[in-house]
């Protein structure tokens, strides 16, 4: 298990989802991914993407205009 990071700031949905999807393809089951976003739509879209593709949405936190979303790769 290892921790990974993805910068999806300044991108509008669905680009943060596409970037997440493409990053997850390179990861292993159990890996953790932290995604930084500025589009508030991502806090709905990335958890939805996780649910339908069998990955685990852990949490999200908001720091001003920045949204930090944590997920766990489960179906790699």
């Amino acid at each position: 298990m290892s921790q990974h990071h993805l910068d999806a700031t300044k991108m509008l949905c669905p680009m943060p989802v596409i970037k997440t999807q493409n990053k997850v393809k390179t990861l292993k089951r159990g890996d953790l991914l932290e995604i930084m976003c500025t589009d508030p739509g991502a806090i709905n879209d990335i958890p939805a993407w996780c649910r339908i593709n069998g990955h685990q949405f852990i949490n999200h936190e908001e720091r001003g205009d920045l949204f930090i979303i944590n997920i766990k790769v489960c179906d790699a």
Partner: protein
Amino acid sequence: MSKQAKAVALISGGLDSLLAAKVLLEQGVHVEGINFYTGFCVEGHTHAIRQKDKKKQKRNNALWSAEQLGIKLHIVDVIEEYKDVLINPKHGYGANMNPCLDCKGFMVKKALEWIKENDFDFIVTGEVMGQRPMSQRKDTMPVIAKESGANDLLLRPLCAKLLPPTKPEIEGWVDREKLHEFSGRTRKPQMALAEEFGFKEYAQPAGGCCFLTDKSYSDKLVDLWKSRDDRRDYEMDDIMLLKVGRHIRPREHFKLIIGREDGENKYMEGYRNQYTHMHASSCVGPSVLVDGVLKNEDDFKLAARITARFSKDRTQESVTIEMTDVHGVSKSIDVKPLAAHEIEEAWQV
């Protein structure tokens, strides 16, 4: 059924693709969704930018559809490849800059590549014969199947009975009798089927998912190309900025993009290192980006007077406007805001 076939369904987020995929799931077919992001999809962007839309529920309807169906969804970035579809459409444009027939053919072709790479059997779309004036007609639907190369691997469950049997039907992977024969622009059969499947909520509806079907957006795109010596090309930032702000072109060689509200102003601030920008420094006013070149002091003054026109002090004698170039070098000018009637109609893009 002879085997559990695997189909990829083009999921736009609208009702028809939701139903088409569901029809196949009901027949025991393994279905996964695919959604192509061209850069022109209405979903999300403007809602994410505009302050007035902040309270609107932000959801991607393609993801939402997949979740309702309980299927995986693969979102594919086709922004670069899509340029050729938009710039050189073999079948031309619809009412605006929408190359619907080429677009659908392109997406089915991409889906065909995907099923080959992923060992799936066929492609499903939510097309309904006669529903769309360009891409969903009796004479153009076979064109999509043929030019995409999908041929009889393309199944349209909502109107399959009006079309020749496809391989999935001939092979018995799906039961043709349980497919549909919807046609025309009425939405009633789809609504009835949605009710039968228990879908109480669904996105409204076909045609409204692409900015290229919008006249105002198409006009801005044509203006952009014209201003670049008819070089019909674009970058992602170009097409994003066409969705934002009020666009005013007072001279052929420059256009001003003027934020209409706080959300847009804030979004446009992200482009300050790529565009010369202006704002009123003596009062509250919008963010303004300059697309093109201010060739001389007259251009600078005109741009400043327009910027002042949209500031809080538009009725005052003088407003101070600050302009900063892409290198961060700023200069200021005091100008009299243009009066409303001085903003010529022909300048509005």
